[in-house]
Structures are given as structure tokens and as C-alpha cells.
């Protein structure tokens, strides 16, 4: 059942065609050197996407181990398992790793693999720039981690507030490694974002107007635009900090008239759009998975798309809600509080769209859908605590407590990471040609959902009881012990859940059930070609007439374009 002419799965030259097209093991096995050379020199968007994903999985393990070490230290009051210095390094590196070297690049990796396939293109707009982006990301990560060998990892927190980062207070080189690592990977991310914008705007196949792109593609467009606008201020701020430390400049040097507040403004002007940079692709994944597994068209395509634009714009104007406690004027507090309430509206619209898509559908509870449902519930909770934090008095009470830690883990872990897990189970068959194990997937989902809530829900309570974030220990009489122990047990459960996930990836890649081209009976173009796709993706560039080209093909009697 070849959906695209010529891209027949059993053609005689299949092995040759796939030698550069994914994780396919070719018939004649090339030597290790040849394989390494292929992957190092590749400019193919699918291979680069796979490189991104595998690299971020390695960083995910590292960041996860750091998190478990943090929880181990906090198991008992007056803990001495790790000690304060290593603890500072652990929470700094955990946050930096998860934001800059796991969630953001993994989503860019998914986009790299999927966007050209979804828009019916053969590659990204600038394939060599694409490879350049990946290698800068990798070397930025390695540079940051090299600090462990060079005398100690960064220990100033992932948002690195001044003046702690000034040379007077951080005299070793760990902060310099942090700056340089983020600068290098940031330039790579910017190049990748520009590449995505150009690809989506100029490479769509005939018939695919911007109003017909899959929502994942639409959201990646705005995601990339957010990066284009929000990353350069971080680059500028990092350059300023580097000059403060290396050349004796005074941007953030409070003793010479510099302003610690300027760093906060610049960092969060990047930092809050960054939250949506990590959330929008997750929304895109959910907008692809939920309709397919509910067997319905997405409810309100236009309103989901419009809400994305709304989130993009508003997210540029909410950054100072991270700074309510530094003593801004009441006017500024009110403006940023109001903007933050406002951004809940388009986000809420999307939640309603997804629920309305599920409502009345013939829902299939395969693992991708389980994770998508998990996303809906967990992200909703993170969003609700976000609205609580947008109220200035509440924020004054709980800012820099574990309540905030609980909140943003519900958004980034319960939100982005659940969606990314959904994406793994959904697109793994396309990338490898094999299904992931449903049995292991269900165990993974159940343990992750329980472990996640066990880890992060008690943090809200510990925070309301007054436990500040980033303390390396606490005394027994504060009443925090019980909640911390629940969190630690949950973290260990999460470790088990991820072990199952990695085992599932490994065994399914080796001996998973063959997937075929279109195992989920889906509707977007990536399912029209073989699994894994040939390196040129489509033998003939497809022509589309609706938002669900594969539906039209499978149901010529009732095509979508009659209804759109």
C-alpha cells in the first residue's frame, strides 16, 4: 500500500536508499569508521534530528542523575550526604542542563526531523547551517560540562543572578564556563531557529498555504520567531557578564554603580519567552496526537493557531513577574501581573480545544495518547499554580520557595516532557520502522505519572510551609521532613520509569514489531512516505488540498476540502 508513488517499502534498492536515511540497518554492514563518518558529516535533516534527540537523551540522563542526587541529599534533615558546595553545583547544572541541553534542543531536534516531512519538503532550507547548529549545541553542552574537570561546575543557579556572578564573588572559572557554554549553544539555537522560519515560510509543498500546515509546524514557526527575538538579549547579557568578569567592566557591578537589576531584566526578557519556547512545540505535539487518537479533526484549528500567535506576543511582556520581590513600583507590578493573567487566556483556549477534540471521539488509549492525556492534566495544574503566582501578594509570600519549584516542574516536566514522551511513542515507528512496546510503554506511563506527582506535588506544600528553594539542608523541627521524603521517593520512582523508557527504546529498536508506513492511521504528510523515510523524503513532491492530505487520499468520497 504505497501511498507515495515510487517510495515503495520493498523496492530492490531499499537498503541503498536508506543508507543515509535514519536508524535503518543496511544489508551490507559498513565499517564503524564509515558509520561515524556518515553521521559526523551529515547535513540530512533526519539524521541531524536523530543526533539532536540522542544527544539530548544523554543530557537527560545526566540532568536526571543530578536531580536524584539533589533529592538524596534532601532525604533527611541535617543531611551531610553531598554537602553545600556540591549541592550548589548540582542544582545549577540540573537547571541549566534541563533547559538548555534537554528540553529546548530536543524539541528543535523533533522539529528538524518532522517539519520538512510534514510540509512535503526534502530538507531544511539551509542544510549545512542545520549541521552547524547541532554541532554548536553539542560543543556548548560539552564546554559547560568540561567545568567539572576544570575545577568545579557552575554554582550560581540556572538564572545566575548578579552580583553573585561577578568576579568579586565567583573567583573561579566555573561561571565563565557557564557563560561560554550558553553563548556557543545559543548561537547554534539561533541559527536553527532562523533555519526553521525560512523552511516553514518558503519550502511548503504546492497547495499547503500557511492556513493548511499541521499545527505542529505552525507552532514551530512561532516558536522559532520567539527564539529569534528572545535569544539575542540573552546573548548580549552574557557578553556583558563576560566583559564584567574578564575585562573589568561594570554592567552588573553594584560597587561601581552597575545594576544587578539589569541582569534580572535581561535574563528574564529571554527567560520568559523561553518558557513558551519549551511549551509551544509541546502544544504542537499534543495538537497532532490528540486528533489522531480521538479519530476526529482538531476542534477549532483556527483558534488554536490564533491562540499560538497570542501566546507569542504576550509572552514578550510578562518577564518581570519573575521579579515581584525585588521592589519594583506598584504600577509595574500591576502591569506584569495583568499581562500574566492575560496569557492564561490563549493557553486556556488551547486546553478547551484539546478537550473538545477528545469529546465525542472514538478515543484509542495507545501510549502516545496516554502521555497526551497526562500532559493535559499535569500542564493544567502547572498553569493553575502559575495563575496563583501571577497574583503579586501570593508571589511575595511564596517566591523562591519550593512552591515555585513545584509550579514550574508541573509546567516543564508535566507539560513539555510528557508531550515529548508522547512524541517518542508516536513518531518512533516513523523514525525506525518499528513500533515501541505498548506493554513497557504503559508501565513507563504509569510509573512516570505516579512518580511525577509524588515528587512535585509535595513541593507545593513544603513551599507553603516556608521551605526556600536551593537550601542544601534543613533542621528537623521545621516540619518539612515528611514532604521531602515523599519527593525523594517519587524521584527514585521517576528513575525507574525512565529506565523502562530507555530499555523500551533499546529493545524496540532491536526487535520491535515492524511498523509499516502509517501505523496510527494518521493524516499528516510524514505518514505518506516509508518508515524510515528515504533520504530525499518524497520521490515526488506531494500536492495537498486540505489540512489532512492523507484523509483525502484514504477517503476520496468525502475529502476534507469540502468542509474547510
Amino acid at each position, binding site marked *: *500500500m*504505497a*501511498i*507515495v*508513488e515510487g517510495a515503495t517499502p520493498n523496492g530492490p534498492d531499499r537498503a541503498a536508499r536508506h543508507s543515509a536515511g535514519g536508524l535503518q540497518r543496511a544489508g551490507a554492514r559498513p565499517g564503524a569508521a564509515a558509520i561515524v563518518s556518515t553521521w559526523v558529516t551529515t547535513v540530512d535533516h533526519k539524521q541531524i534530528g536523530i543526533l539532536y534527540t540522542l544527544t539530548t537523551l544523554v543530557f537527560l540522563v545526566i540532568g536526571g542523575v543530578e536531580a536524584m542526587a539533589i533529592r538524596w541529599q534532601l532525604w533527611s534533615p541535617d543531611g551531610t550526604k553531598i554537602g553545600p558546595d556540591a549541592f550548589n553545583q548540582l542544582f545549577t547544572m540540573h537547571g541549566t542542563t534541563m533547559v538548555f541541553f534537554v528540553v529546548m534542543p530536543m524539541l528543535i531536534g523533533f522539529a528538524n526531523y518532522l517539519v520538512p516531512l510534514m510540509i512535503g519538503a526534502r530538507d531544511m*532550507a*539551509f542544510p549545512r547551517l542545520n549541521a552547524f547548529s547541532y554541532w554548536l549545541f553539542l560543543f556548548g553542552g560539552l564546554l559547560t560540562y568540561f567545568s567539572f574537570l576544570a575545577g568545579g561546575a557552575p554554582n550560581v543557579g540556572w538564572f545566575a543572578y548578579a552580583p553573585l556572578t561577578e568576579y568579586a564573588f565567583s573567583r573561579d572559572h566555573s561561571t565563565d564556563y557557564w557563560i561560554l557554554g550558553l553563548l556557543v549553544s545559543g548561537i547554534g539555537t*539561533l541559527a536553527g*531557529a*532562523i*533555519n526553521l*522560519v*525560512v523552511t516553514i*515560510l*518558503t*519550502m*511548503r509543498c*504546492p*497547495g*499547503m*498555504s500557511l*492556513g*493548511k500546515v499541521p499545527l505542529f509546524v505552525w507552532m514551530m514557526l512561532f516558536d522559532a520567531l520567539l527564539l*529569534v*527575538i528572545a*535569544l*539575542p*538579549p540573552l546573548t*548580549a*547579557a552574557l*557578553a*556583558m557578564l563576560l*566583559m564584567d568578569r574578564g*575585562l*573589568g*567592566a*561594570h*554592567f552588573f557591578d553594584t560597587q*561601581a*554603580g*552597575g*545594576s544587578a537589576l*539589569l541582569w534580572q531584566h*535581561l535574563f528574564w*526578557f529571554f527567560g520568559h519567552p523561553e518558557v513558551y519556547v519549551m511549551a509551544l512545540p509541546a502544544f504542537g505535539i499534543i495538537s497532532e496526537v490528540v486528533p489522531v487518537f480521538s479519530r476526529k479533526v482538531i476542534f477549532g484549528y483556527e483558534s488554536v493557531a490564533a491562540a499560538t500567535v497570542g501566546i507569542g506576543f504576550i509572552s514578550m511582556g510578562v518577564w518581570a513577574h519573575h521579579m515581584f520581590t525585588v521592589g519594583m513600583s506598584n504600577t509595574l507590578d500591576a502591569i506584569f501581573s495583568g499581562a500574566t493573567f492575560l496569557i492564561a487566556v490563549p493557553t486556556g483556549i488551547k486546553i478547551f480545544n484539546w478537550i473538545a477534540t477528545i469529546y465525542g471521539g472514538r478515543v484509542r488509549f495507545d501510549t502516545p495518547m496516554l502521555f497526551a492525556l497526562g500532559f493535559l492534566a499535569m500542564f493544567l495544574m502547572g498553569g493553575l499554580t502559575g495563575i496563583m503566582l501571577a497574583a503579586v501578594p501570593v508571589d511575595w509570600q511564596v517566591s523562591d520557595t519550593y512552591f515555585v519549584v513545584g509550579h514550574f516542574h508541573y509546567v516543564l516536566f508535566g507539560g513539555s516532557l510528557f508531550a515529548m514522551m508522547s512524541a517518542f511513542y508516536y513518531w518512533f515507528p516513523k523514525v525506525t520502522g518499528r513500533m515501541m512496546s505498548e506493554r513497557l510503554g504503559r508501565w513507563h506511563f504509569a510509573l512516570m505519572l505516579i512518580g511525577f506527582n509524588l515528587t512535585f506535588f509535595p513541593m507545593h506544600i513544603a513551599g507553603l510551609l516556608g521551605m526556600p528553594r536551593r537550601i542544601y539542608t534543613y533542621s528537623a523541627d521545621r516540619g518539612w521532613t515528611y514532604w521531602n521524603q515523599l519527593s525523594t521517593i517519587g524521584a527514585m520512582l521517576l528513575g525507574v520509569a525512565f529506565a523502562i523508557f530507555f530499555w523500551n527504546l533499546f529493545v524496540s529498536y532491536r526487535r520491535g514489531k515492524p511498523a509499516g508506513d502509517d501505523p496510527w492511521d494518521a493524516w499528516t*504528510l510524514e505518514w*505518506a512516505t516509508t518508515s524510515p523515510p528515504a533520504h530525499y523524503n*518524497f520521490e*515526488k*513532491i*506531494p*500536492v*495537498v*488540498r486540505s489540512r489532512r*492530505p*492523507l484523509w*483525502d*487520499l*484514504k477517503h*476520496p468520497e468525502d475529502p476534507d476540502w469540502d468542509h474547510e
Partner: protein
Amino acid sequence: MSQSIQSPASAAPDTRHGAGLRADLGPADRVRVGMITFLISEAAFFSTLLMAYIMYMGQPMPGPTPAEVLKLPLAVAGTICLLLSSVTVHMAAGALRGARMGAFYLTLAVTIALGAAFLVLTAMEWRELIFEHRLTISRNLFGTTYFTLVGFHAIHVTVGVILLTVMFALAKARQVTQANHDPFEVVSWYWHFVDTVWIAVFTLVYLVGR
């Protein structure tokens, strides 16, 4: 199902709602959209540096202050160089599109010379600031913000001069031609952008901030 996604049933693209409009987009459009997106990011970058300059402008600090050390003549001369170079690079782009190669090489060479002259003027100004007034990046907040803002702009001018020189060489090697003028077109956009940033820097540093 033996149909393909290119089958006749769906071959005629829907022309309502502007569908199929992108059929005439090609590699040239990629380069253009790419440069515009890149320049948006550059605008965000320089906006950040300008904001930092504004934030510390007029704050009490140990000298030297802008009023004491900044001299208008050199800066005005540099500004004239850059403004003229925007005109000449525009003429060069027009000459290339019209395949008037003689005019193209002349106006491009003048553009490169004007860009280099701006850099020389900046170097002269910096020499005076550093060696006569002892104003360095670590002396005070003015030095910090001035050298950062003007320095990052000068780096961009330097990159622009290199790009224009590469374009000159590529044109000599018949790689950039009338038929393939888009690379030069987008480099000229970059050059206009760098000149625009200088207008903002000049206004802020030499007119408002002095």
C-alpha cells in the same frame, strides 16, 4: 489503495484561499527570508545594548564623562562615511541587476573604502580615548557601556567590509552576476542595517548622551 498523493484526483491544487501561492518561491527567497530573520535577531541584540546604554546614561560616576571626552568632528565624519556608503551600496545593487559591471565594481569599491574609513576613524577616536583620556572599559560605567555598544557595532562594520570584499571577489570570479545577484542583494541589506544601527548609536551617544 493504489492512489498516490500526486494522483490526478488531487493534482490540481486548490486555488482558493491563496493556496499554491508559494509555487514561485525558490532558493533566492530562502536567502532573503533568512537574512530578514537574521536582521530581526540583530535588531533585538542591539536594542539590548542600547537599553543598557540608556539605563546608565547621566548617572553620577567618576570621570571622564561623555561631555569631557567625546568629540563630534570624528563621529560626524564617520557618520557621513556610513551614510554615503549606504547610497553607494544601493547603486552597486542596481548596477549589478542591470549588468553594468563597471559601475558595480566602482560603487562597490567606494562602499568598501567608506566602510574601512569609518573603522579607521573609530580607531583614531579610540586611541585618543584610551591613551590620552585614560578611558577604558573598566574605568567607569560610561567606558563600560560606550566601548561595548560602539565596539559591537564596529565588529558588525568589520564583518560587513569583509562580506562586501568577498562579494567583490566572487563577482570577479563570475560567481555573483546579474543572474545570481541575490547574495549581493542580501549583503546590501545587512550593510543598510549596520548603517541604521549607527544612526541610533550616533544619536544616543553623541547627541543625546553628551
